[in-house]
């Protein structure tokens, strides 16, 4: 009899409905202001809302019942669920939205809500976030989890992680945990969060982990996929411990460090599949890239979701894009490179160039537009002559003629900029808040926008263009910055789009607007070896558009950038950052940049027939102001600079500045030899004043990455 009942139980188990809980709120604001009008889970990734991708992932795992826990913009989410193909009767999945109270301030609160409502009826369930993209066989994880539970009732949770290098592009630098694991049982023994800022120097691993385990593995190479298989005890544990807020930092850490609970958490290292959370704009880019390169098969644009998408993504290795979408018109002279996705009914004008970007449906792209590594949501107009680079442009945005949108800019929905706008890096724009609109959203978010509105007085809006309706989101640390959380101001900088790690300096590209905090300057003890590899992989933009940008074009870019710097009197730092990003975006050697800078500075010194003294004064001023830039763009290399100057001599009759230049670069003894050599060509004496001045200056600009 016993065996029979055992068999029955087995059948029972097989028939048990697989349930999943989707947390459709992020409880953070990394995507602002794109998320002022809709929740993050409805942001499009490859022209389909994130939530759809999440459902798709769950459907792959054979989930039958899904609860979507929503808080902000719940009516939008419900709408999206209803219109999703997964809520059709034949989809095999039952999706029910759960509206939680506005007071749900964290994932922990949501879990408590799940507990009090008694939603989870099965023994184990899948817990994911509304921003998950995955093709992992979660059913396999559930099987492993159940098997383990049969032997050990205390194994309450299995966390899905994926192996990756430290600098993998999907690995968020702002939030990358350390796992201490028993490699034989894959039991997680310790979990430690690590943020980019405040910089963590030491990982603290409790000594007691070695009491019971002879040998453990310390792993910093895992990506937390945000997929957890939980037993039904988990919500009740949240209920018992009301201070658990975050699922990882509080719950996992709390369970592992508790002396009372005696529960185990295991990890599941996924080998083949792909899973990632779109938790910040940086991972947004990386996930998008992975999609278009088809690493997530079967989750790829051509097979999934909205049929309205006219895709132009050829398989990764096919370079000739397969263009015409229905109804949209793409000019014959437009160039569309690979890794590009263009929505339905989008028209693209003459001579435009779209590189590694995603353009939503119903967009109008003018002629002569350059869009690189960017995301343009639906219904946006980009007028002729605009350049958009590595940015996210919301839906319904109008970018007027001749505007330039640079690295990391987020334009909120409905924003108008231009004509002739010059947006700074990492600028965030949105439309002003109008009362009575979007009543469903909570006050919290209102006040946020209002705050921004009230502080508009301090902002220089001249760069936005005449027709702009935008307000600028100030990039400043809040007063009550919580360094304990990854949401602290400086850490968030590491998570946004365009925040690539620079090989030479390891600094964050600095924002030109409010004075960049000094603390982001390189941590000298950071290993250069890692840095190099980090940047090599994370600098997605470079890898995508490499070779696409012609050498010539790059040179003109440098010139333009410098002309702007000269004209608008940027600081040397800002100009250097701009050049660096340019260099990275187009993947050219440093010498190219140096060449461009040197020639631009030489050109800047006017050739006029006037008294020698005046001429010396002019050159002195120019070099005093801009000479340092040569050193700033990446390493002091005097010899190369002099070589460049010499090469240029044939073109310009201005060799007399060479001496001053060199003094600026070289130390005394090496320069003296060179000077004499140069003086032969020069038609003027080396300005003595410039010598001493620049010598002083060069003292000051010693390499700033001094070690401690």
């Amino acid at each position: 009899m016993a065996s029979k009942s055992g068999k029955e139980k087995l059948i029972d188990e097989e028939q048990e409905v697989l349930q999943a809980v989707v947390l459709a709120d992020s409880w953070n604001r990394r995507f602002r202001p794109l998320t002022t009008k809709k929740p993050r889970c409805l942001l499009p990734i490859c022209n389909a809302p994130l939530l759809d991708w999440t459902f798709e992932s769950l459907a792959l795992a054979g989930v039958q019942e899904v609860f979507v826990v929503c808080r902000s913009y719940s009516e939008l989410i419900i709408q999206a669920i209803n219109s999703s193909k997964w809520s059709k009767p034949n989809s095999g999945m039952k999706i029910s939205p759960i509206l939680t109270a506005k007071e749900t301030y964290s994932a922990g609160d949501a879990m408590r809500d799940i507990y009090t409502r008694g939603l989870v009826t099965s023994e184990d369930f899948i817990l994911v976030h509304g921003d998950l993209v995955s093709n992992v066989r979660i059913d396999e994880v559930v099987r492993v989890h159940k098997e383990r539970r049969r032997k050990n009732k205390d194994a309450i949770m299995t966390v899905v992680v994926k192996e990756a290098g430290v600098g993998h592009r999907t690995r968020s630098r702002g939030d990358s945990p350390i796992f201490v694991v028993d490699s034989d049982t894959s039991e997680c023994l310790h979990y430690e969060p690590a943020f980019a800022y405040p910089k963590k120097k030491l990982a603290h691993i409790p000594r007691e982990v070695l009491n019971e385990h002879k040998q453990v593995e310390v792993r910093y190479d895992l990506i937390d996929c945000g997929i957890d298989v939980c037993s039904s005890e988990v919500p009740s544990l949240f209920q018992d411990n009301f201070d658990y807020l975050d699922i990882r930092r509080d719950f996992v850490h709390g369970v592992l460090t508790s002396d009372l609970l005696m529960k185990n958490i295991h990890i599941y290292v996924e080998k083949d599949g792909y899973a990632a959370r779109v938790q910040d704009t940086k991972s947004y880019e990386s996930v998008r890239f992975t999609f278009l390169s088809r690493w997530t098969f079967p989750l790829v644009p051509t097979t999934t979701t909205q049929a309205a998408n006219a895709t132009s993504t050829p398989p990764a290795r096919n370079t000739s894009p397969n263009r015409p979408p229905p109804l949209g018109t793409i000019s014959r002279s437009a160039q569309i490179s690979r890794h590009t996705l263009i929505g339905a009914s989008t028209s693209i004008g003459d001579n435009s160039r779209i590189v590694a970007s995603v353009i939503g449906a119903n967009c109008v792209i003018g002629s002569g537009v350059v869009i690189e590594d960017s995301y343009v949501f639906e219904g946006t107009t980009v007028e002729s002559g605009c350049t958009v680079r590595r940015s996210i442009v919301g839906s319904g945005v109008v970018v007027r003629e001749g505007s330039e949108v640079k690295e990391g800019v987020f334009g909120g929905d409905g924003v108008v900029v231009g004509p002739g706008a010059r947006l700074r890096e990492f600028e965030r724009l949105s439309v002003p808040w109008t009362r009575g609109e979007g009543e469903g959203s909570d006050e919290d978010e209102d006040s946020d926008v209002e705050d921004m509105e009230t502080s508009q007085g301090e902002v220089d809006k001249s760069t936005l263009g005449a027709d702009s309706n935008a307000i600028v989101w100030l990039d400043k640390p809040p007063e009550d910055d919580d360094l304990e959380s990854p949401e602290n101001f400086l850490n968030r900088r590491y998570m946004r789009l365009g925040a690539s790690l620079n090989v030479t300096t390891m600094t964050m590209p600095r924002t030109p607007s409010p004075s960049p905090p000094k603390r982001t300057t390189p941590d000298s003890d950071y290993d250069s070896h890692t840095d190099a590899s980090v940047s090599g992989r994370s600098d997605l933009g470079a890898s995508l558009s490499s070779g696409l940008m012609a050498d010539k074009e790059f040179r003109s870019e440098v010139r333009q950038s410098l002309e702007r710097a000269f004209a608008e009197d940027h600081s040397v730092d800002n100009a250097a950052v701009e050049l660096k990003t340019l260099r990275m975006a187009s993947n050219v050697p440093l010498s190219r940049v140096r060449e461009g800078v040197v020639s631009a500075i030489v050109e800047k010194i006017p050739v006029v027939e006037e008294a020698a003294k005046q001429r010396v004064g002019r050159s002195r001023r120019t070099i005093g102001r801009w000479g340092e830039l040569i050193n700033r763009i990446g390493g002091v290399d005097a010899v190369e600079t002099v070589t460049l100057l010499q090469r240029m001599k044939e073109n310009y009759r201005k060799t007399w500045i060479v001496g001053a230049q060199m003094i600026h670069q070289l130390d005394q003894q090496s320069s003296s030899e060179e000077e004499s050599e140069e003086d032969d060509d020069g038609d003027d004496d080396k300005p003595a004043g410039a010598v001493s001045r620049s010598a002083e200056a060069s003292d000051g600009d010693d390499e700033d990455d001094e070690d401690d």
Partner: protein
Amino acid sequence: MDIDTVQPAFQKKEFLAVLLAGFGNELLPLTSDNGDEPSPKALLPVANKPLLEYTLSWLEQSGIKDVLLIAPTIHESALHHHINSDTTASNLSIDLQTYDETHESSIGTAELLRHFAPRITEDFVLVPCDFIAPPSLPLSTLLDKYRLESTSHGAIVSTCWYPAYAPEKGILVDEWGQIPTSPALVWDPKTDSLLHVDTPDELDRNAEEYGLKMDMLSRYPRTRLSSSLQDSHVYVCHRKVLQLLAQKPRFESFRQDFIPWLCKIQYQPSKRRKYAEFISSIPNQTTYLSQSLALTHSTTPSAAAQSVATLVPLEESSTPTTTSPNSSLPPPTFKVTITIHKSEDGLALRINNLYALLEMNRVFLSAHAQSAQRVGGKATPAPQVQGGALVDPKAQISADTMLGGSTQVGERTVCKKSVIGRHCIIGRNVKIVGSILLDHCVVEDGAKLEGCILGKNTKVGSRSELARVVSCGGYEVGGGETLKGEKLDVSDWTAEVPHGNEDESTESGEENEEDDSD
């Protein structure tokens, strides 16, 4: 001048073995002075062969020719005598150097190396006198590893760790002191780099947690952490290590201070730059650069080539005239390698506690018994009896027992699983099980010994019963006494001086682990 005879002198030695022979405080009372006569640890026998012999033959098998033997002055004559006697079969040229030290004072290994640095002109192997390696772990394995890693990855120190030996609970005797604890260490199995060694200082600083540098984790994201490994104290070192030691005069112990410090430099570029001239085993930076240049332009980039290439961003390295070469040059790479001996490949052990001594003897006995069985093929193979032993025909000596030369065994005496030294006199009706008797012991009639270690010249009176007893040389146990689990020291019966001394580190580096035992 005859060129032929001069020639060999110019042949450069590759390695010099630096053999450290200390007092062996952790083996007290076996190593305590026997009257005026010292008993050096190096001459303590395991399976009737002095420890030093194992080490010397291990060195010799690897092709090393020269040994610098460093020992306390008071051991000089004993060691000198031993080295020059016929009992050593080695052809090594041994340079015996001494330093003044007593049981009580302590000189750290790092200090000793600094002191004897002028005598070391080439790469060296630092060896303790008490490490016995199984045949599966020849020194040449470690040397080869060093040769490979030093040329390809700039390794300057190669270490060797073995699984810690933990005796079963039942064997533990409080009086014998504790088993040395193993330090926690972190290593990267992929590259065999030793990354972190926990030190008592760090334990003091944070008794709850191990602090691992994030820089280490970024560079070596998947590492292993364990505290079940023991250091063999065999270090293959580049000669620059001595210069580096000279830079750090405060370091006392090589194992406890120097190695943990060196490990950390691996992921601290600023320190690597600071000590660049001492840590790079690759001759000089310019050849290094050209090497990397060649590697980057190679058509088949290997993993090594890539790693070099990433280390040396070319546009930055081509600046020979910059003012501060230290900051512009990439920090040199270097490495502390680790070899981990697996327990299934035979027992490797440092004889740095009494349990280890017992265990090592047991292993040799069972190995002998097995080989005897294989050769003899008889059901009851003959015991290991050396020449000149007088064994009464009525005595029972089991196959896994070893008898030294000129030892007498009386009738109806039973010996099992024991090692009995030379010139011992065992009476009648004696029972010896699982014990070690050093030379010149006298066991009178009817005595029973179980799990004992008796020092030289120990006398056991008739009908006394000893279990798990350790005695110092020259100790006398009265007739009919029953002792259990004790450490017998001369000082106990000559004067009422408490035995065992606190925190005494011997020079050979074993101080680290054992000293907490008191």
